[in-house]
């Protein structure tokens, strides 16, 4: 028992203070792309030729990139001779409408929150049934990560539940293989209305690397109506969390939003933490070395 407590102390507090602060992402992380068509050479199609999923297209408005198809691979940036296309480390990419995933020069539509009725129902409690409908298990892995102590999804009132009957909506990953279509339809029908559908990852939005295969249906929207699209291959956990919280109107439009009034659970949590610290102090444990936020030196502080 003491050993467990000691280990607990050494591990420290690891939950990131998102959304109050956004942890630094690695410099090589490929988040929201930026395009500057003024840099494009006349008639150049290098990026379009290089893209494995036809996410890039050129029309009168210049080059456009469909985040729903993008695998966030480095092929287009490597192919571009003039540096007209690049990736930023901005993790915010979700959209409520499929068309809003098209990136051109300029500002993209931010995620709109649900309407007032849906917000009243789901803002503080959203139970999701996850359906893995093909794909590579990458999205599932980073959907799962939100449940760890690092992101602690539960503090936002969001939970994955074991049955569609207990759920307010579906979180779908994968391109919807022919072999999962029926199971997905049945799961959708089993969720009581009103319900929300969230498509996570390039596969669930467009079929991803499997788009156009006979064996898949090119995304969740081919089977069920989708309310939120979260791009990535797979999306970073922060991209998923940002999408969910934006839809629930729990995150500001700014990158670092002003601190919202504490969520109902938070006061209690702070109280519980204080009590736990007190109890440990009475055991004589040295708390000085294990103060929370032990991310200095690169442990859990940055992502």
């Amino acid at each position, binding site marked *: 028992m003491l050993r*467990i407590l000691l280990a607990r102390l050494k591990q420290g507090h690891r939950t990131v203070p998102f959304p109050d602060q956004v942890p630094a992402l*690695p410099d090589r992380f490929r988040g929201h792309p930026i395009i500057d068509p003024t840099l494009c050479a006349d008639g150049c199609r290098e990026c379009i030729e290089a893209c494995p999923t036809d996410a890039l297209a050129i029309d009168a408005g210049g080059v456009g990139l469909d985040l729903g198809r993008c695998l966030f691979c*480095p092929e287009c940036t490597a192919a571009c001779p003039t540096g007209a296309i690049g990736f930023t480390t901005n993790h915010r990419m979700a959209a409520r409408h499929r068309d809003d995933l098209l990136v051109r020069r300029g500002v993209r539509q931010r995620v709109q929150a649900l309407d007032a009725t849906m917000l009243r129902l789901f803002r503080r409690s959203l139970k999701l049934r996850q359906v893995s409908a093909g794909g590579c298990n990458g999205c599932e*892995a980073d959907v799962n*990560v939100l449940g760890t102590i690092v992101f602690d999804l539960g503090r936002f009132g969001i939970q994955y539940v074991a049955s569609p009957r207990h759920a307010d909506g579906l979180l779908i990953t994968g391109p919807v293989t022919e*072999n999962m279509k029926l199971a997905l339809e049945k799961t959708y029908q089993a969720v009581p209305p009103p319900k929300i559908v969230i498509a996570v990852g390039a596969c669930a939005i467009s079929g991803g690397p499997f788009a156009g295969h*006979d064996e898949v249906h090119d995304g969740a929207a081919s089977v069920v109506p989708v309310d939120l699209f979260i791009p990535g291959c797979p999306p970073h956990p922060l991209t998923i969390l940002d999408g969910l919280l934006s839809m629930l109107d729990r995150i500001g439009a700014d990158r670092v939003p002003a601190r919202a009034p504490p969520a109902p659970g938070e006061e209690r949590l702070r109280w519980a933490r204080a009590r736990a610290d007190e109890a440990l102090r009475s055991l004589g444990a040295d708390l000085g070395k294990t103060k929370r936020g032990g991310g200095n030196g690169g442990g859990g502080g940055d992502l």
Partner: protein
Amino acid sequence: MSRHSLLTLANGGAAPLEELPCLELADFSEAVIGAPARGRRVSALFGALSARGFALYVVLADDDTGLLECARTDLAGDEYPAMTPACAQVHLFEREIAEQWGVVPAGHPWLKPVRYHASQRPGRDAWGRPAGVAPVVGVTDFFRVEGEEVHEVAVGPVHAGVIEPGHFRFQCHGEHVFHLEISLGYQHRGIEKRMVGGPGKRTIHHMETLAGDTTVGHATAYCQIAEALGGRHAVPRGCALRGVALEIERLANHTGDLGALAGDVGFLPTASFCGRLRGDFLNMSALLCGSRFGRGMVRPGGVAFDLDGSRVADLLARLDAAERDVSDAAQLLWTTPTVMARFEDTGRVTADTARELGLVGPPARASGLRRDVRKTHPAGIFQMVHIPVSTAETGDVFARAYVRWLEVTRSIDYVRRQLGELPRGAARRECPPARGSMFAVSLVEGWRGEVCHVAMTDDLGRFAAYKVVDPSFHNWTGLAMALRDQQISDFPLCNKSFNLSYCGHDL
């Protein structure tokens, strides 16, 4: 069967297709059936249609000499005598051949679909199903135990957690499991079929998403194939960085598995610590190449992202911190009696069973088999710097957990050593296009075990056939055997101790 009649290749080797001996069917069968007695195991057995017609191909691995024996046999008819009755480890391979090509392995004791798709040769169907009618996934004649108090439990394809889809049927008497049948195919997305005619611009992305948690493993296996076919090795620095990425991938997954095992026996400290630590290892991959899953890292000729001194220092510091924490988290498992009581003697697979089924990776090593491609068939950096094989003897959940822990410690040492002595030079060089009419084999020890890729090119150097064998393809049957005579409540624990891939199996 003398070995001279088979083509021998080293891992990552290639040879002109004409050197691949075409055996008589009887000799081919004898080579496969006799393989276990000669100390070989079946790495791949598959059918392929080429300009020369339909043929079966086999790759046998000799773990003592590090050589791979390859052969083919032409098959004109609709059936051939099944090899499974005499060689259990090919049972799923033969089912796959039947499903993909409409060829019946006559006498196969368990001839059921694997992924539930139509045959790739229209008009030929191993089950005589009418053309144009798509098979329905999960509809097959499941093995059923009859008896007054026997009952059946069916689970999936949609599970209670965030898990890939699969269907499991248990034949139970009370809590006691007589038999578990595993029926997959829900993740089938037709990747192998799409490889034919390649490589194309989606190829490397298909390889990176065969099993998303094994991105580096499968991408490395593919790149070794591309380099073998092109006739030029990857640069040394690129090989070393692939080794670093591969071991970080192993660290992330093994750490996650230790946490998941703890969670399944209700031991929350290690479950939460490892959940976070797994993320720390994934973030090390992101430091390498921007992706937590190693996407974009491994490319033919080397790697696409090099490391500078400050990045190496950052990685080493993170590695030290993670090592301390993961060590504490794992030691809690072995010193907590309630954990050990659940781990020990649960889901036991004997060495004989593991050998007979051809298990690979941690489940094989947990049953005492010294099977590790990094040691027995080394390629790339593993030829230069070796890594010890981690084994255990008991073949139970504890052994599979403990082998993972041993591998965590050894992978950390390995990464640290590699980062300290990275070869100089470029991280990547141009890989020449594939030569025509070649046959190439590549093995990589992914974190789940042996990843095997086999490719053949047509006379223009395009893929005429591409076979992928994920370690899970070998190991799912091992999980079914582990459940025999266990409590049904032991299933989640046994399942986690194997942690197999659905998408890697379904392709």
